[in-house]
């Protein structure tokens, strides 16, 4: 207890020097906690947008669909899949889709298209398309309505209420075509997605390509992503080998891996800061040991054990580290919490971000627990840095030290 008091007061002896090292720890931590949160926000948003726009958590296709996404590889009995999904309480919502590539034309222009046949209400519970509508409305009950992206509306030079023609090949290899009225325009943060996707009613899509009652895919979201693999695996068992059940990690492996890798490697930022800190701490503690040589000699002379002296120096470094780290963590997380409210607007960064699919505004994602873990690492590194000065103190000869002036 007295040793704690001694160590604590010792670090405040040279207030200026301690404040300098503390400030560097604090500023370093604020920066890292902040950068970490922005990077995490960036990665999460980019993944969330990808999942939220289309991929969702788990998808079901007929086995072989990915190799050749043709109509005869559609799911013949979607009701079987629907029943299996309804039976699993871990699934929050699911949507079934018809997918067809084709051409979308206006009076003035045309563009390649990926038509997505959806049941609007079900799709709204799985993806953010309904929430991404910037003009007009979502698909309703009318069979000849189409929801296109704002970008597509510019390409085709059409607006709300205008007519467009969609063409796609049918099961028999003929060309099916249908006239649609634009009822809504959407805009997601993924430029590439907006470039090709358009939504039409599920039944209309089926009849356009002659798919009968079949569906191309099911997409579903879970209550908790921690169940991801468990749900996937149990669906595989329930549905059998005729179906292919994939989690988003299977569907977009590079992106999923990158997000995970980024989050796991956050600790590296702390290690780098810690390494930078080490030299400051070594220097500070060395100076403070040198300044106290005589006093340390007296302590040794009156019977303070080397072991205790050693701990005293380490304790001083640990206290410096702990104070700096705590203040840094509190301020850093507070800054994040404050910025997370309105997000960081990166629109000045031009289109650059939109190809990442994050949106122009990045919301830092706090991970207080993770930052505490990082902070502990820094404290540990401070203690490590004090080893040499502590050994120096221990090696002092009491007599030489007392003579020293």
């Amino acid at each position, binding site marked *: *207890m*007295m*040793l704690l*008091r*001694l160590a604590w*007061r*010792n670090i405040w*002896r040279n207030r200026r020097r301690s404040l300098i090292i503390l400030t560097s720890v604090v500023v370093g931590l604020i920066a890292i906690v902040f950068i970490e949160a922005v990077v995490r926000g960036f990665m999460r948003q980019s993944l969330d947008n990808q999942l939220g726009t289309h991929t969702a958590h788990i998808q079901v296709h007929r086995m072989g669909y990915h190799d050749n996404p043709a109509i005869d590889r559609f799911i013949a009995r979607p009701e079987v899949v629907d029943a299996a999904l309804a039976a699993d309480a871990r699934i929050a919502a699911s949507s079934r889709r018809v997918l067809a590539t084709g051409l979308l034309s206006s009076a003035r222009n045309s563009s390649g298209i990926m038509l997505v046949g959806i049941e609007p209400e079900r799709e709204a519970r799985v993806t953010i398309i309904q929430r991404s509508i910037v003009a007009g409305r979502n698909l309703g009950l009318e069979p000849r309505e189409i929801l296109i992206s704002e970008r597509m509306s510019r390409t085709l030079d059409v607006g709300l209420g205008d007519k467009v023609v969609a063409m796609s090949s049918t099961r028999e290899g003929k060309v099916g075509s249908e006239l649609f009225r634009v009822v809504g325009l959407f805009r997601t943060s993924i430029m590439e997605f907006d470039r090709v996707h358009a939504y039409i009613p599920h039944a209309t899509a089926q009849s356009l390509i002659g798919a009968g009652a079949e569906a191309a895919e099911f997409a579903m979201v879970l209550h908790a992503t921690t169940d991801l693999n468990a749900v996937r695996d149990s669906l595989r068992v329930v549905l059998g080998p005729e179906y292919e059940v994939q989690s988003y990690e299977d569907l977009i492996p590079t992106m999923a891996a990158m997000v995970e890798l980024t989050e796991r490697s956050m600790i590296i930022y702390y290690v780098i800061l810690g390494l930078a800190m080490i030299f400051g701490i070594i220097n500070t503690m060395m100076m403070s040991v040198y300044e106290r040589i*005589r*006093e340390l000699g*007296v*302590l*040794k*002379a*009156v*019977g*303070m*054990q*080397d072991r*205790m002296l050693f701990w005293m120096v380490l304790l001083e470094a640990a206290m410096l580290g702990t104070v700096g780290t705590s203040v840094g963590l509190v301020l850093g997380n507070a800054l994040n919490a404050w910025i997370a409210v309105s997000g960081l607007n990166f629109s000045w960064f031009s289109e650059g971000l939109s190809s990442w699919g994050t949106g122009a505004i990045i919301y830092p994602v706090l991970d207080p627990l993770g930052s505490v873990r990082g902070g502990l690492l820094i404290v540990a590194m401070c203690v490590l840095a004090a080893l040499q000065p502590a050994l120096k103190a221990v090696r002092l*000869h*009491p*007599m030489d030290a*007392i003579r020293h002036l």
Partner: protein
Amino acid sequence: MTIPILQAEALEKTYHDNGVPVRALVPIDVAFDQGEFTVIAGPSGSGKTTLLNLLGALDAPTGGRVLFNGRPLEGLSKTELSKLRLHQFGFIFQAYNLIPVFTAVENIEFVLTLQGVAERDRRRRALEVMKELDIEALAHKRPNQMSGGQQQRVAIGRAIATNPAIILADEPTANLDSATGGVLLDLMTHMNQEHGITFLFSSHDPQVIERGRRVIRLHDGRIERDDRRPGA
């Protein structure tokens, strides 16, 4: 015959100053008994500090040995020597005895902490000693708020608080004016006479030297004279 508290047998110390040997102590034989009040006198460079450091287990001799209560110190580990100093010796140095970040009472408490005295007894014992030395008023002052004489009195308090077998003081009055030094000596004499605490201190100040009941005069590392004044 009783065993002396501290004893030097053919004690020798040669320093090496940049390779040049400096004989600070030629073989010395001397013993100190319980209750003595001894001053080691001698001019600068005569070996007073060297002798006290060897007797106080702060330094190792280059020849001969030191015995504490008849037990030789040679062969004791650093830790054992440290414990010996903590429990058996009290030290008062010429200056800068106290830990600057601790108040007077904390300075005294600290050595008791090192001894493992329980927190409650620690504070009581420290205040008791301060009362005995009449320095209670200084209890909550830090060293930089005290005069040199006050600091030395607190240092005496720290030295006696642990109930050591002997107190070793290397020129405790050297940094004080003669009046203040006199007060300090009064205090040491009082502790010696009332409580039988054994003191061994050094000085080259005649006024201080004449207060010793036993005076050992060193010159060039050897004992020139060893006088006892039973009446003093």
